[in-house]
């Protein structure tokens, strides 16, 4: 077995263990949180008979241990159960929501990279000068502005006033690519600007760290042209922290930028999870958290593989 296959196999096994742990913890947590899903579903007017009828129909009258094992049992077979509210299979609902979340995350992270990579490198190379100060102040603004406020401002300018883009909503990429793009731009920028501001600060300091290394001084003193020093010696070595922060930001966005989803009426997993928690829709909460955990693990795995690709030292060790 080649080292890379062994590495992947080990990571996959580890991921499965983590996912199982997540499943157990989430199940325990949702059942510990106060709030009765049956009462919520019935609203404020009902008789005790109605309450008991719905409770037993939802299987909530069984002992918690029985519920736990029956849930784990079917989850291991890939069946995450059905929503308490409408009886829809949880997996179907999650898969329906996933494309919107993926779209927003992908566009958001691309925009963030487009902002943060040039800005971070530029600021680092001109450390202490006016341009560095401008980038640092701008990124401080980006980090500090609440994303819902940014979203409302963007809607006000580009949708209400200028009428260039729709205010809200989502179109699937497959079938309506133009509609998809028009709808994803504003929420994408809202997510991307915030993530980009955070990433700019990381990239700047990563580049600065590398630039102060002795081999960079050597490269400069042996007379290499500045672009060669920058691209070959500094940037390549700064890639690892950049990958790390990109992975973290991407996972954060995938895990649910609930506020942005609310402002733009974006049908993502974040809002789904939020409403599921409000309704105490246990199977849906469990499924959504499991999905988010799986995405986190997947991104971690990809980032780890990329480490090995960009840095031979990791590959060989």
């Amino acid at each position, binding site marked *: 077995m080649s080292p890379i296959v062994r590495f992947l196999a080990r990571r996959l096994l580890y991921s499965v263990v983590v996912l199982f742990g997540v499943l157990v913890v989430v199940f325990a947590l949702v059942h510990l949180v*106060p*709030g009765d*899903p049956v*009462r*919520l*579903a*019935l*609203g*404020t*007017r*009902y*008789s005790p*008979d*109605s309450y008991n*009828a719905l409770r037993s129909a939802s299987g909530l009258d069984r002992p918690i241990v029985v519920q736990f094992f029956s849930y784990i049992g079917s989850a291991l077979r890939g069946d995450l159960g059905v929503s308490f*509210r*409408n*009886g*829809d299979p949880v997996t179907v*609902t999650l898969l*329906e*929501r996933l494309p*919107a979340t993926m779209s927003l995350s992908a566009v958001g992270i*691309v925009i963030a990279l*487009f902002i943060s990579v040039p800005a971070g490198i530029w600021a680092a190379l001109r450390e202490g000068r006016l341009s560095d100060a401008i980038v640092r102040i701008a990124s401080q603004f980006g980090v500090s502005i609440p994303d*819902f406020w940014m979203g*409302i401002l963007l*809607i*006000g300018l*580009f*949708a*209400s006033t200028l*009428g*260039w*883009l*729709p*205010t*809200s*909503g989502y*179109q699937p990429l497959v*079938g*309506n690519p*133009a*509609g998809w*793009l*028009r*709808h994803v*731009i504003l929420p994408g920028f809202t997510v991307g600007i915030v993530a980009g501001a955070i990433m700019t600060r990381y990239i700047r300091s990563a580049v600065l760290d590398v630039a102060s290394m002795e081999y960079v001084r050597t490269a400069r003193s042996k007379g290499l042209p500045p672009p060669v020093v920058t691209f070959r010696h500094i940037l390549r070595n700064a890639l690892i922290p950049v990958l790390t922060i990109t992975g973290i930001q991407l996972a954060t966005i995938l895990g649910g930028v609930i506020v942005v989803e*609310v*402002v*733009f*009426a*974006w*049908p993502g997993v974040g*809002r*789904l999870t939020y*409403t599921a928690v*409000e*309704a*105490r829709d246990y199977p849906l909460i469990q499924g959504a958290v499991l999905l988010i955990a799986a995405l986190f693990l997947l991104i971690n795995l990809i980032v780890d593989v990329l480490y090995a690709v960009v840095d031979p030292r990791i590959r060989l060790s």
Partner: protein
Amino acid sequence: MRLRVALIAAGVITALALTACSTGQRVDLGGATRGNLIAAIAGEPDQLDPQKTSAYFSFEVLENVYDTLVEPDENLGMRPALAESWEVSPDQLTWTFHLRNGVTFHDGSAFTADDVVYSYRRIIDQQLPNAYRFSAVTDITAPDPATVKITVKQPTPNLLVNIGGFKGMAIVQRKNVESGAIATHPVGTGPFAFQSAKSGDSITLTANKSYWGGPPPVSGVTFRFIPEASTALSALQAGEIDWTDSIPTQRVDELKGDDSITLGVTPSNDYWYLTLNEARKPYDDVRVRRAIAYGVDRAAIVQATSYGTATANQLAIPQGSRWYSDYHGYTRDIDKAKGLLNQAGVEGLTLDMMATSEYPETVTAAQIIADNLSPLGINVKIRTVDFATWLDDANKGDFDMLMMGWLGNIDPDDFYYAQQHTGGKSNAQHYSNPTVDALLDAGRTETNFEARKQDYAKAATIIADDASYIYLYNPSVIQAWSKRVSGYQPRRDKAVRFRTAGLGR
């Protein structure tokens, strides 16, 4: 490699530039939705089974999909719907409904008396949330396909409201229920048929061309879920949507001056109240409750919670309802309140007030109430919880005071019985007054309108005097729609009916 990156970048930038040039007008939501009225509601229906859901978002959609035997008109009197006419036997114990001819479900199958019996039996036999509305009913039969007989154990003047007051009592189709599709693909007899749903995004209905009330003027209705009110308003102003009730109250004044849209501020039948837990001392003492009622500043609460769009009221039933009766027992009077507390021997009280983030008005009002009551030496500790916890605690009686509202009432029995009758199932405050019980029981069977109205007016006065509920205000239904929309009427029961709405250019 580097060239490819540059190409992708160039592509993205071009695409961005291209989209920026095209104007952001109406969104084509795919499918045959051109010509549809697009309505934005603030949240997603939890399910589409009208007999099982309790969510307002569901009823906003289902109002247009389902019919009831009778239905409320604009003044909330009951008028024919699936039943064309009805009569009551002289002993008031048998109601006979004559059904409309030639009505079909959206899948083309005929609507008959069996569907009515099936729908009502389902609510009763499965103890669905509205089963209590049939508490007086002993039997439901279909002597022939066009007739339904309902037998009751006592004269029931509010039977029509109970079976037709809202779409929770809708006539459903047996096949649709038994296949389990009703929760996601409902089939009704209403003006619009369910067409499609996109999770978290929208539900699209298509016009029922053979609707018994005449085909709707629009080709269909698309309900989009836009939770953020300022986004919904921007979408309305940009012409992306035609109607919304997701409106920030603080912007109502500004919108009144906006010529591009129509704003509807309609008094509703909902009401908000405070109640004190009479199972706990000292709130079992009527003097303490009355002191708090004298301490509360309704005008300030109305201003803070609704920017003045609501109407202060010291009883539940709003002005404009035919059941309205006048009552002005309380005006804010700190000295009187202090005197009452003195008589009760209460000093330096700490009061646990429960509010819920689900209804932001309770959180806002709690702060005002805390301020109102501090001159009385009452220290209000506000506890803000989510609605699930709120329901749990209200049910367990774990509160000193709470603020809540009742929505969608029509008949006075809805307003008072469950909340005020001894042992009533919504009597979380444990109020008990034999005189009130007797009046509420009498109201249930009194068939003379004036006599019945008097019963409820008397009961309501005692309830307010006893400060079982400290009634605060009736909110307004706030909706806005585009100038293109014609023939739409906002309703005081908050039912959203698009069957008569048309779309101009």
